């Protein structure tokens, strides 16, 4: 474990930072550590964590996806239309929402890979298209996502079982150890473990890292570079779709909010950088970005319990972000060969 962390300094750093911040938060919290607080925190963090995951994959392949926030908004609007009715309709609606996200990501990938347009421009433009589509679907905020589902997915495991009458309403012995865990966290890490970790261990996943690290070498070695780039954007769309779906379920509405979409995209980049993933690609990972997103959120939790003037919040958030990235930059002062700092 220690060896593994030493090999992943970025992940280790963000883990320590998050653990420290979250521990102090709970020590300062007037009610102390309770399951309710944990569930509330988890609910507020899941969407941004999914968006951070989405941003990470293209960044690893030395790309960028400025449409993640917009795709999240679009899929949220789609979910607000589809996710209701009979259980079968609900499941189908959720699947369609995720497919829509992945499909949008695939289109991004095709524009970048086949069209050879710089990712920053391609996804900036496709993000505008996604917002446009979202506005077409939901000119006004609204929609009715299934209420049971909303309750079940945003509370503890016990509530989930209770809602759907599973495992004796949550009383079964094998549920008890997890009964107080928040469902959103399980969904988040479940997705990461079932989608990202296996993907990382495929040839395509390895090629994502290789492309980000040295594209020419990856090509010369005969690695499936195009496939990797396409999958990177596809996964970004899929994870952004997860964020949109969750947001729609959580708020039980869809809202084509342009400002919110932009904020989520920018925060996703911040989370990725905080997680230690190199913007130049090749180094980092999705799990670290999730922790990066958590750190961003914990900072805003502090505002609540410390009773900071809400007018000061944007300023403090900005300063923390600047300080965090600048702190990482102090490594630059220790580099003794100035050439190593340059492209």
């Amino acid at each position: 474990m220690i060896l593994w962390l030493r090999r992943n300094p970025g992940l280790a750093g963000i883990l320590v930072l998050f653990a420290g911040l979250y521990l102090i938060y709970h020590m300062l919290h007037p009610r102390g550590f309770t399951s309710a607080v944990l569930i509330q925190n988890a609910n507020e963090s899941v969407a941004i964590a999914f968006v951070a995951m989405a941003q990470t994959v293209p960044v690893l392949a030395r790309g960028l996806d400025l449409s993640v926030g917009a795709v999240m908004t679009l899929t949220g609007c789609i979910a607000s239309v589809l996710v209701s009715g009979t259980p079968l309709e609900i499941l189908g609606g959720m699947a369609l929402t995720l497919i829509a996200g992945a499909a949008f990501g695939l289109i991004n990938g095709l524009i970048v890979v086949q069209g050879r347009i710089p990712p920053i421009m391609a996804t900036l433009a496709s993000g505008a298209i996604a917002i446009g589509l979202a506005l077409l679907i939901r000119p006004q905020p609204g929609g009715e996502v299934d209420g049971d589902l909303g309750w079940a997915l945003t509370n503890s495991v016990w509530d989930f079982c209770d809602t759907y009458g599973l495992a004796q309403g949550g009383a079964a012995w094998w549920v008890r150890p997890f009964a107080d865990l928040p469902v959103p966290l399980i969904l988040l890490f479940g997705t990461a473990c079932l989608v990202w970790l296996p993907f990382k261990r495929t040839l395509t996943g390895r090629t994502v890292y290789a492309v980000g690290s040295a594209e020419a070498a990856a090509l010369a070695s005969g690695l499936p570079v195009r496939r990797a780039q396409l999958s990177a954007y596809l996964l970004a769309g899929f994870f952004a779709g997860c964020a949109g779906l969750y947001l729609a379920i959580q708020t039980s509405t869809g809202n084509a909010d342009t400002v919110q979409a932009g904020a989520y995209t920018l925060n996703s980049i911040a989370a990725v950088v905080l997680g230690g993933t190199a913007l130049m690609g090749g180094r980092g990972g999705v799990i670290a970005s999730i922790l990066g997103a958590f750190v961003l959120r914990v900072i805003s939790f502090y505002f609540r319990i410390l009773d900071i003037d809400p007018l000061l919040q944007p300023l403090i958030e900005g300063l923390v972000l600047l300080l965090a990235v600048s702190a990482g930059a102090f490594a630059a002062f220790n580099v003794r060969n100035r050439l190593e700092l340059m492209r």
Partner: protein
Amino acid sequence: MQAKDQPLLEMRGVSKSYGGVRALSEVNFSCHAGSTHGILGENGAGKSTLIKMIAGVLRPDAGEMFYRGQNVQFASAAEASAAGIVCMFQELSLIPDLSVADNICLLRPPRRFGLIDAKAQRQRAEALLARLHCEDLDPRALVRDLSLSRRQMVEIAKALAQEPQLLILDEATSALTRRDVETVYGLLGELRSQGVASLFISHRMAEVDALCDRLSVFRNGQHVESFAKGAKSEAEIVRLMIGRDVTAKFPPKADPVPRPVVMTVQDLSWEGRLKGLSFGLGKGEILGLGGLDGQGQKELLLALFGVLKAVRGRVEINGISGLPTSPYAAKTATTRLALVPEDRKSEGLMLALPIADNLVAAAMDRVARGGIIDRAALAATIAEGIARLQIKAGSPEDAVATLSGGNQQKVVIAKWLMIGPDIILLNDPTRGIDIGTKQEIYRMMRELADQGKSILFYSSDYAELSGCCDRVIVLYDGQVIRTLEGAAITDEALVSAALNIGQGAAA
């Protein structure tokens, strides 16, 4: 009928053009299993294009390729490698951010349940590294943390992992230590006895001579001739390569005279790479930096040019003490310094910019007043630079990337000559350059020295050091371990000094 005589690989009438420029025309070429086949030619002769085609990176415009008697067309490097054709490119094909094991098993990693099996992969990597006597390499280390010579060994292990039938080595040994070169030689012999064919590309004649049993010479995109080793003398081969006679390879040296010292370096140290280095450089002297690759030569040049931070030691340049703090300070000091860096493509040139912009990049102050460029002076300076080094360029407005390697290096040198430097630092300026341009560079170095410029010259080619230098300091582990002067500079002395052995033999 005679299966043994059937070539492993045969190319018939293969041609390739890049935007109207013929890189290969109507080439017929074949090589046989169990043979080590050397490919010789100047830069731009078409060698790289040829091997890229064989390796599936490029597709020919015309002609056919037969592999094991089958007409083949590889759509990608992956297809060629699946057929057993494995290529080690001149520019390393390793992924810096992946581990050694990941790199070695890059294309066909061992899998379990469809996913990459990290443990089996590490074991396979360990086995291959052991075969190359590189047990010191940790398969879990990241390639970016390895030295250039270690990386090249990983590259070789990676090629072996693909179980090649036809192995292509493009300048594969240029960065290796002597010991590793021996290992690779042995390995090639072993592969040959197993029936593997090797195509070997190197600019080092001695290496080709030692390794290959058959040689093919290319010139201007055409296959000139193939013959068995020993069928032609070195002079004949060189003539085939450049299409004319080469008489004197190096310009005559100046008579040894006492030279006033321009620069003295004492106890120079940096980051454990330079460990108390001391020497002096005379006016009008060509001082060579010898030794194995990676003994601090590059760091020394960078330190003198103000690129490195926290360098300790005393340096005095024409009575002024202290190192420059930046390349800008180095080029604008009273005693002007210039550096021709190691990597032409990423450090010497701005490839996408026009030749003109590259030529004046260091001498902008000369053609500008108050930050505003004087167009007439600019044009005159550019024309002068192109003429002075006889750079073969269509228009100064063309991107410098369109030039051949040799002409690109001339642009780098011309850029620095424009500031009228007093001390010129050269970091392996002839690496990967054709013979013709090499000789022009040797001649120019001597002319500059005769004009009173001082030159500090690092080269990985010992023949160059012994042919060009008035004096050579040999570096070992960040220190000067021997100084050779005049007639004492021989290839043998350089080699033994570099290996830090045979004190008596060289004296």
